[in-house]
């Protein structure tokens, strides 16, 4: 968990009472939306509605929502395979996200990428690859382009704890440090790189310490506290926009399910999973909102109902969309 000293560094001017009700309820709705879409994607997979696999991010929503919620249209995100829902936060219409699951012509890439590899050029979502840390490298290149073009957009690039062991992670952070690039590296440390525990991945306690080697700040955060992540991200984004360079945010969190839908995750203890489920980022935030009297049971039900409607409409759209014709196979190889 984030130490108080680190939080103090990240939030020198942040007063939590200063978050507007609109922002708090917006963050809440987005957390619930990501959770419900992700759970729906899992169900659809189990129903055999699409093939391949799905990499659930349930349990990690606060890390994604906290970092991507306030981004502008011209900002970029570089998701990992587990960040399908980051498309939703960036504003990609839900119908396209579900069309991507089903690999239909109405998906942004006409059914070429599997759900783990969804991107969306109009809103600057980089297409992730399964090559570990690849999106951090491409995201770093985009940040170089932003700087060269003298724009004030930023890149939020995601990876898991596993990617921080990979050489490309270090090449990317080093390069971004040298050139003070406008990028926020967000490590969702869920303690497991597929089935490899953190203790066999690193000798560090905080992965955020890796930033020290590259000359920019890194902060360990309670990744299940959406406001802690949001506040830290706001500081990092402001720093990036001001040309002061990258930040590494380590969001300590947990994935509730296996690495993918075909992984029963028997390598983890039930006690560990249950302990983390008790720290459900949505429930934690709900409590805060109830305390502030911003949320009621009926409002909560209303949010869930409206998202259910959105999801049903999107799934219907996706199901009714056609598959690409075989004749499209050779399209878009070269320009």
């Amino acid at each position: 968990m984030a130490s108080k000293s680190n939080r103090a560094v990240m939030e020198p001017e942040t007063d939590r009472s200063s978050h507007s009700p609109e922002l708090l309820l917006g963050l809440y709705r987005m957390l619930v939306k990501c959770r419900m879409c992700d759970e729906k994607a899992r169900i659809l997979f189990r129903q055999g509605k699409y093939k391949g696999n799905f990499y659930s991010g349930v349990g990690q929503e606060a890390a994604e929502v906290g970092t991507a919620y306030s981004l502008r249209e011209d900002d970029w995100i570089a998701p990992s395979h587990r960040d399908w829902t980051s498309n939703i936060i960036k504003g990609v219409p839900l119908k396209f996200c579900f069309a991507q699951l089903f690999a239909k012509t109405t998906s942004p890439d006409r059914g070429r990428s599997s759900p783990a590899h969804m991107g969306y050029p109009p809103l600057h979502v980089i297409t992730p690859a399964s090559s570990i840390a690849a999106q951090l490298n491409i995201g770093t290149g985009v940040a170089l382009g932003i700087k060269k073009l003298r724009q004030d957009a930023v890149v939020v690039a995601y990876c898991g704890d596993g990617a921080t062991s990979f050489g490309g992670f270090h090449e990317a952070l080093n390069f971004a440090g040298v050139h003070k690039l406008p990028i926020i590296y967000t490590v969702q440390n869920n303690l497991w790189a597929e089935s490899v525990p953190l203790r066999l991945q690193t000798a560090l306690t905080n992965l955020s310490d890796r930033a020290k080697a590259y000359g920019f700040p890194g902060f360990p955060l309670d990744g299940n506290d959406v406001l802690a992540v949001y506040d830290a991200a706001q500081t990092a984004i402001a720093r990036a926009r001001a040309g002061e360079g990258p930040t590494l945010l380590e969001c300590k969190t947990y994935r509730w399910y296996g690495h993918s839908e075909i992984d029963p995750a028997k390598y983890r203890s039930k006690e560990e999973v249950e302990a983390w489920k008790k720290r459900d980022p949505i429930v934690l935030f709900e409590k805060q909102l109830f305390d502030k009297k911003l949320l009621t049971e009926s409002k909560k039900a209303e949010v869930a109902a409206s998202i259910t409607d959105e999801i049903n409409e999107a799934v219907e759209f996706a199901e009714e969309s056609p598959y690409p014709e075989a004749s499209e196979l050779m399209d878009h190889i070269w320009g």
Partner: protein
Amino acid sequence: MSRTITMLQAINEALSQEMERDDRVFILGEDIGLSGGVFKVTDGLLDKFGEERVLDTPLAEGIIIAASIGSAMMGLRPVPEIQFADFITPAVDQIIQQASKLRYRSAGGYSCPITIRICCGAGGGSGLYHSQENAAWFVHEPGLKVVMPSTAYDAKGLLLSAIRDPDPVLYFEHKSLYRQAKGDVPEGDFTVPIGPAVVRRPGRDLTILTYGLMTQFSLDAAEQVSKKGVEAEVVEIRTLAPIDKATILSSVRKTNKVLVVHEDKKTMGFGAELAAIISEDAFEDLDGPIMRVTGPDVPPIPFSPNLDKAWQVNTEKILAGIEKLAAY
């Protein structure tokens, strides 16, 4: 106006003129700025364009290519350099998993107009890790274009085409040709299109399909056998991908015999693909086996002068190949 310059000067001139013409173009790589490049290919460009457009990078090929791909997605036209083809392996993930697939996987939503300049080839004693000619690795990957000039004229014209191309282009420069290949090159803007092969020497008896430094050696060999009454047609495949089947097949249909010559290793090399194409599309036109004169299947190019010499394809080896094929 044209004048005689070296391939090295032609490459430098193309970079300089394109950077002047298009402010989206920038170059990046190891030792390209302050030192002007190991072979001085980028000499003078830092002084002319400044650090923002001539970027000395950390020694990390993966991020050199990734930084190029990402900035190309932002609309820029990066020209990264891989100092030696031997060092390209750390960047292969970025080239194959990212650059080659980006357009296809996004159905045209993203594209990747980068030109990767790669110094390649045996230079006589350069040893294990400064000698490889490995262009064929990348020909296997649709989405990439692969070119290798052998003349100063093509070096400039192909580089300008590559930088203006909407797709990732791997531009291989043979280090033995940098100062040795000299020729008339226009001072102004011109392009040599990516794609077409070129018949460097017409002949009726057999076709030599070759590229890179081997073009020179093949032309030398063709001149020598001409004295013995054998006329070899030399076709230079300046663009390895996408391949110009029409020019190749038309030459095969004329001569009915094919010798493939390349510096790279034999097994699964570019020559194997050429043989397969010809066998599929011009089988009835062949009067003999498709033969290959190539580098041997030895893991690295050895350092000792005798071994290095034994390794290299040279005019004598090509002559032997021609004679064997002509006898059919």
